[in-house]
């Protein structure tokens, strides 16, 4: 059995000198970061800079070429199959496109991880946790709908609910607000903060939405050409004079 405790500095995820290429395409080129307990860590960056690759490395969906990814002090690529499964129960991964199971209703989507990972639960307990978590994301009324009948924002929230149901200690959000209107985006931002309050999660939030970064992030890091060019609070990062950061900011609020 693995243990899941924060490190002595309070770090939950620690990445050092991470490299990852696909064939000739260098995606991550020496990334290091620390995420501490109950922190919301925002990763900003342009499309195609390897933000999704970064969190896939954290959850063990991809393996690094070199460098170290430690979650709760465990080197992810060194875990065996069963240890990795154990670790993954502590990590909630909310996919960029929600990745809801098309052939299952909302209820079945949420029951699915429970049926496979919490076999001791009775039908009634399962029903209760499904309803509780749907209520937490404010979508109890969609319980019998199919994913294809939901809007993009609803799908995102159901995706988040599906990861919350196994009570993870870490949440990885891949572009939780992309493609949503400002009001729905704000609802999702609030949900992310609420999740931290209610479930005491440590989160990495990937986004290129500055409002999302500002409202949810305790710490913000800007990824560019495979490296973090700046880390700090939102204000610290955007006070910087680096062209790449200024561009990000100026194009956003152009009128």
């Amino acid at each position, binding site marked *: 059995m693995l243990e899941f405790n924060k490190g002595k500095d309070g770090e939950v995820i620690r990445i050092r000198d991470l490299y990852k290429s696909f064939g000739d395409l260098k995606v991550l080129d020496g990334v290091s970061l620390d995420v501490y307990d109950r922190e919301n860590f925002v990763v900003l960056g342009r499309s195609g800079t390897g933000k999704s690759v970064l969190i896939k490395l954290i959850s063990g969906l991809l393996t690094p070429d070199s460098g170290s990814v430690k979650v709760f002090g465990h080197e992810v690529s060194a875990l065996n199959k069963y240890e990795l499964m154990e670790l993954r129960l502590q990590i909630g991964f909310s996919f960029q496109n929600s990745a809801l199971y098309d052939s299952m209703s909302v209820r079945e989507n949420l029951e699915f991880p429970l049926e496979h990972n919490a076999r001791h639960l009775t039908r009634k307990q399962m029903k209760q946790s499904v309803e509780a978590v749907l209520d937490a994301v404010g979508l109890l009324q969609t319980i019998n709908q199919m994913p294809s009948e939901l809007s993009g924002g609803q799908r995102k929230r159901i995706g988040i609910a*599906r990861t919350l149901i196994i009570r993870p200690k870490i949440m990885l959000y891949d572009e939780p607000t992309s493609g949503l209107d400002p009001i729905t985006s704000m609802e999702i931002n609030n949900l992310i903060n609420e999740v931290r309050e209610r479930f005491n999660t440590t989160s990495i939030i990937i986004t290129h939405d500055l409002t999302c970064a500002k409202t949810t992030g305790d710490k913000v890091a800007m990824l560019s050409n495979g490296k973090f060019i700046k880390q700090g609070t939102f204000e610290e990062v955007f006070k910087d004079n680096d062209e790449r950061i200024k561009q990000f900011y100026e194009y956003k609020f152009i009128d």
Partner: protein
Amino acid sequence: MSAKSPRKFLISKKVDAFFSDITSASIFTLRFFKEVFRPPYEFREVIKQCYQVGYRSLFLIALTGFITGIVFTKQSRPSLSEFGAQSWLPSLVAIAIIRALAPLVTALICSGKVGSNMGAELGSMKVTEQIDAMEVSSINPYKFLVVTRVLATTIMIPVLMCFTGFVAMMGAYLNVHANEQTSMTTFFIAAFDKISFLDVFSSLVKSIVYGFTIGMVGCYKGFNARNGTEGVGRAANSAVVLSMFLIFMEEILLVQVTNYLR
């Protein structure tokens, strides 16, 4: 894998890709035998998939089997009557249907209907990251998706084969009855006179092999789909082509084995 070193190929890019494809397909197939006996078992999903396989192909198989029976009987009659051997018609038809037609027709129809569907279904789950989503929630997608589907086709194709054989024999009977006024009892006694246990047994074995092939190829192609929606179509298409090709290869092989045992 550094960015600068040029890619080296053992023979050529195409040949290398072909062999690495065969290797990964073999690993994918062997994994089935490793995972199928390991609990937890997904009984409910296997039943659901069995139902899907049967339900999806039943109508088409009934129609094709029936027509095959009628047409084959009709086409065989002239050659037999040339030798005045019309009375052999029932046993000739039975041999053809039970030894060859029923397993082949069933397998080909199902690879078109079921194999392509599995390729498309798993392919779209792959490209929309649903398979990754299972993986990150500690669910073994191979076990849940592949093992259950391959079991379902391996169980259901033999069952469907029996059904095809039955329907085709009924078609043959109707044709014989209409032309020679043979009674049902006479027809079936004559028909099964020349059928041995080995015939039935080898057809069952063949169907099991075909069923396994259809499920495995469909799942393999789906699991390895790439490049968005375009890849889904390609997965479905190549699942059908490859499984039909393999079915014919297996047919040739198994016929040799049966003849050797006869």
